[in-house]
């Protein structure tokens, strides 16, 4: 299903390797797929007969479910492999797991793994299309894409927007994907968080760094608030969640003090009361649920675009038309 070079190539490993045009193509393609999810029968036959494996080495309910919906709405057959029940636990290497699956003639693999570079590692070794659903702290491209789509829906464009990523950028693949996606489409990117949670080289990445959340709110058109992982506290990056919330938490008061309304995004799941207060998450400028809806459409678009046709059949089909 993947023999012809598609506009995206064989795999979606990240947003950094894509051009602005490619990212725009995915967002444009996601539009009609949004409509399908509004129908009574939320299914099109496009990927009928395709086999897609969701290879999740890290537990993740929401991303996996979102991909599953996307796959099933395209009529594909899906198989879920979770690390807790698979041969991986017995010490089978990533390569062997993938090769075994490929030997069963699967068409696409959606992989989430704890090691940065795992998706690329897999993509280089199997013929099936590989979609990165999050590799270590490297990238989570479909999340970046759905964030971009949500922003575009609201503002009508991405170029010239000021978007600030708030929180643990150091450990966040969502932050990186957003950073690349936003820059490629011409937005200005800011980051805000404790310096111990920003990469040391952040000043070399051409973003605006805000030490204080109030300044970030004053500057931004939209905030993408990252989930703070509780382990950061025990690993000595920040003193406590309480202090994090007091110093960096996005609260109603802070937002009200800004001159204009700032759009609120969050990849979920949220730590209410830590990085984001409930009245902000549930408030009028929160598009967090739209992000979830857009997630399925974006993933359908990615699956659709990666599943190209076969060149030899394209040759044979050249004589006939389709009308």
């Amino acid at each position, binding site marked *: 299903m993947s023999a012809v070079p598609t506009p995206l190539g064989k795999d979606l490993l990240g947003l950094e390797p894509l051009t602005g045009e490619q990212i725009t193509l995915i967002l444009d393609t996601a539009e009609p797929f949004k409509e399908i999810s509004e129908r009574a029968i939320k299914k099109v036959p496009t990927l009928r007969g395709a086999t897609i494996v969701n290879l999740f080495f890290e537990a993740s309910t929401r991303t996996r479910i979102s991909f599953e919906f996307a796959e099933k709405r395209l009529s594909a057959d899906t198989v879920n492999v979770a690390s807790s029940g698979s041969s991986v636990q017995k010490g089978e290497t990533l390569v062997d797991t993938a090769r075994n699956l490929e030997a069963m003639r699967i068409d696409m693999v959606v992989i989430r793994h704890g090691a940065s570079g795992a998706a690329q590692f897999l993509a280089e070794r199997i013929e099936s299309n590989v979609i990165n659903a999050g590799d270590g702290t490297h990238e989570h491209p479909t999340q970046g894409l759905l964030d971009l789509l949500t922003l575009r829906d609201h503002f009508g464009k991405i170029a010239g927007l000021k978007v600030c990523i708030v929180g643990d950028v150091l450990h966040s693949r969502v932050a990186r994907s957003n950073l690349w996606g936003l820059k490629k489409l011409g937005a200005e990117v800011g980051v805000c968080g404790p310096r111990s949670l920003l990469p040391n080289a952040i000043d070399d990445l051409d973003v605006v760094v805000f030490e204080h959340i109030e300044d970030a709110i004053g500057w931004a058109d939209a905030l993408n608030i990252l989930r703070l992982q509780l382990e950061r506290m025990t690993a000595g990056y920040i003193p406590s969640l309480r202090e994090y919330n007091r110093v960096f938490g996005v609260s109603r008061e802070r937002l009200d003090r800004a001159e204009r309304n700032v759009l609120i995004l969050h990849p979920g799941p949220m730590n209410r009361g830590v990085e984001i207060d409930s009245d902000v998450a549930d408030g009028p400028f929160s598009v967090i649920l739209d992000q979830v809806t857009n997630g399925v459409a974006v993933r359908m678009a990615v699956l659709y675009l990666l599943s190209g046709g076969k*060149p030899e059949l394209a040759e044979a089909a050249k004589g006939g038309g389709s*009308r």
Partner: protein
Amino acid sequence: MPPKQSTVLDARAVDRTLRRMADEIVEFNDGTDDLILVGIQRRGVQLAARLVSNIAERERATVPIGALDITLYRDDLQTVGPRPVVGPTSIPVDIDGRRVVIVDDVLYTGRTVRAALDELADFGRPKRIALAVLIDRGGRELPIQPDVVGKRVECAPGQRVDVLVEELDERDAVILSDREETA
């Protein structure tokens, strides 16, 4: 050297034909009750809009109009190469129990209409589905026939028929030409 071309219908002829087709659709349907026109992307949509406008003029009734993109239902997605762009689909009313008329510019193999039928089935169960096309060029590969035809055109396999609409192509016309040599 540009491929040999001839104009099958000029702008006036297109207009005349569409007026006649609008009348035939209403006649075929015994009126405008429960009628909905659904145009197939892309030019079927513009033609459906013209037909609805003609019907409104004649019958003083507004017939709902929908647009259908059939890309995701094509039977040749496996072979067509890089993914075609998917256009918008919008069916603004419930089609259960309605009389649907699919509108397209050119009917050839019938595969597009087959895809449209599959897609409509996912929206509901109309009472009846009919097909109206501006041009029927023959060459069917499936047992699909139009109910309302603008013009039948004899077309050899080495030729192509293109419908131009003002909204997209700056003029209305139907052109018959030799297929360009592909490199």
